């Protein structure tokens, strides 16, 4: 089909000589979004704390908090997570949703913490694709001016005692 642009609109001509008009149709909304039962987590980030939750009944420990346990349905309690963990899985995104396209490339990591049953999804800064691996030690950093988003926390590579010595020797 042939496309003809005309003052912000496009007209596609059909085989039978008919025309199909395509117009721009803007749509913008500001949602009033409550974090509700998850609020404590986001308030914690602003104070430099990373919160998970633990089930009051079965003690399953969530690295990404949830208000009620998925296993037994019981309420959870807030629990401070260690600020160091290891990469459970990772990727580098070279494209993204429109909202994040300007931030590409960026690394996504699922971080696992010692003694915690489930991981936490975050960004990994200051690391190149070729340097990241599953099991890599990482530590949490907090954004100085919180935006009250989960991206107020992100991770960076943490020194691994043995590995550091090895790399220093190489230099």
């Amino acid at each position, binding site marked *: 089909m042939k496309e003809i642009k005309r003052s912000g609109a496009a007209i596609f001509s059909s085989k039978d000589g008919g025309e*199909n008009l395509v117009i721009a149709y803007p749509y913008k909304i500001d949602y009033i979004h409550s974090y509700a039962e998850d609020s404590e987590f986001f308030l914690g980030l602003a104070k430099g704390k990373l919160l998970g939750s633990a089930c009051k009944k079965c003690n399953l420990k969530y690295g990404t908090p949830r208000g009620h346990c998925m296993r037994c349905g019981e309420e959870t309690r807030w629990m401070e997570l260690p600020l160091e963990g290891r990469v*459970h*899985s990772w990727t580098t995104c070279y494209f993204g949703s429109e909202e994040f396209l300007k931030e590409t490339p960026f690394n*996504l990591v699922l971080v696992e913490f010692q003694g915690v049953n489930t991981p936490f999804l975050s960004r990994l800064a200051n690391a190149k694709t070729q340097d990241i691996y599953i099991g890599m030690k990482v530590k949490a950093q907090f954004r100085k001016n919180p935006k009250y988003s989960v991206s107020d926390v992100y991770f960076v590579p943490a020194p691994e005692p043995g590995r550091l010595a090895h790399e220093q020797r190489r230099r």
Partner: protein
Amino acid sequence: MKNDRRVYIVSGGVTKFAKAHPEMDFRLMVKKAFDYAMADVPSLSKKDIDRSRISYFSDHFTRQLKAASMVQDYLGLNPKDSRRIEWGGATGGQCIQAGWETIASGRSDVCLVAGFETMSRVETWKGNEFIALASDTNFDYPVGGFYTGYYALMVQRHIYEFLRKTRFYNIKDEKTAQRVATKEAMRIMAMVSVKNHTNALHNPYAQYPAKATLKSSLKGEMIAYPLNRPSICAMSDGAAVLILASEDVAYKYTDNPVLIKGVGCGTDTMRLADRPREHVPLLPWENEKDYENLDYPGVHSFRAGRTAALEAYQHAGITNPKKELSFIELHDAYASSEIQTYEDLGLCRYGEGYDFVEQGHPFLKNMDYGFELKDKGTIPVNPSGGLIACGHPVGATGIMQGVFAFWQLQNSIKKHFGSEKLQIKDAKRGLIHSHAGTGSSVTVSVLEAARRG
């Protein structure tokens, strides 16, 4: 599912999937697929249709609420019963099962199942944003909400569990071992991509048929490591319909219907982080010992897919899918999830998906892919080209798989595709698999040829 009535597919229709159809809105697309299906069963008239189930995924894409009502209206089916079905990427598969329920329960004799999506209404990266809203908007979306990124995280762990720890267990340096394993996985994913693009060369409905090679597939632009463009499905505009009928009336309309022999559905957590680390729900030929040190499903496997398969196999009386199924149309939104799904469906054990591809099982026997395969075509997967090559207009996708599987089992591929290259000889039983939101819900349906005379 005790005492359910037998449900048959009597006809189907699909529009060609395309990046955009500026000449048709969603109503007209469904109408064209519907008219095609009606023309294929001339003895069926519109008044014989009792009700409909209509699926589309996203109100963001249509920017038209109650769009399913507008389809019902445009097809002239008012004032009959209808409802909209939405279940993420599995919307189409779920819609078929919703139609099945109306007949199995005795409520209906003829039910129309129709689905569509018009994804061209926004630019690609905006579209990716809409899709990513199908992830937790408190914890996951704001980190970089991007579906290809989520599936990349899942396959990286799959590679670690099933290639790094096996084929490359003897490489001591962890980083090197992981790099080598990922490179190996990328080569095998490229084989899947070549398979699906090559098959689609003979499917006139496919959006991206291509003469692909391993080399060209490996060279594709990286989207989220290790997933590159040739291993990912595209966004599409398209519609698909199936007409379902009860045993009482099916043979009035065709002597070549297809029986929906088994249906199954499974679910899992929305957030990847919440996926449990427990035991594999076993298929009859698996042993607990096979998976002694495996945390399941973790983020590497789809428990929803395994659960759906278990239910559908039990319902259909299938004990050995690899032997009893003639082909499979599965939800390959990514070449990685095609491999992960072989394992969920029990075509091989967990961890054997990569070998399954290399040995050649999911390829078509009579097709040249440019490389040698030892056990070529023991169970063809995505003979149509799958989502990777056909496109993925979400609400239509699962129904499209149903239409292609229906034609395979009718032995009518030549009539509908204009070529019998993709016709699987003596196809007796096929499986369709529809998958949503990082594996948060999956449907599996088993179809069986039921030709009379």
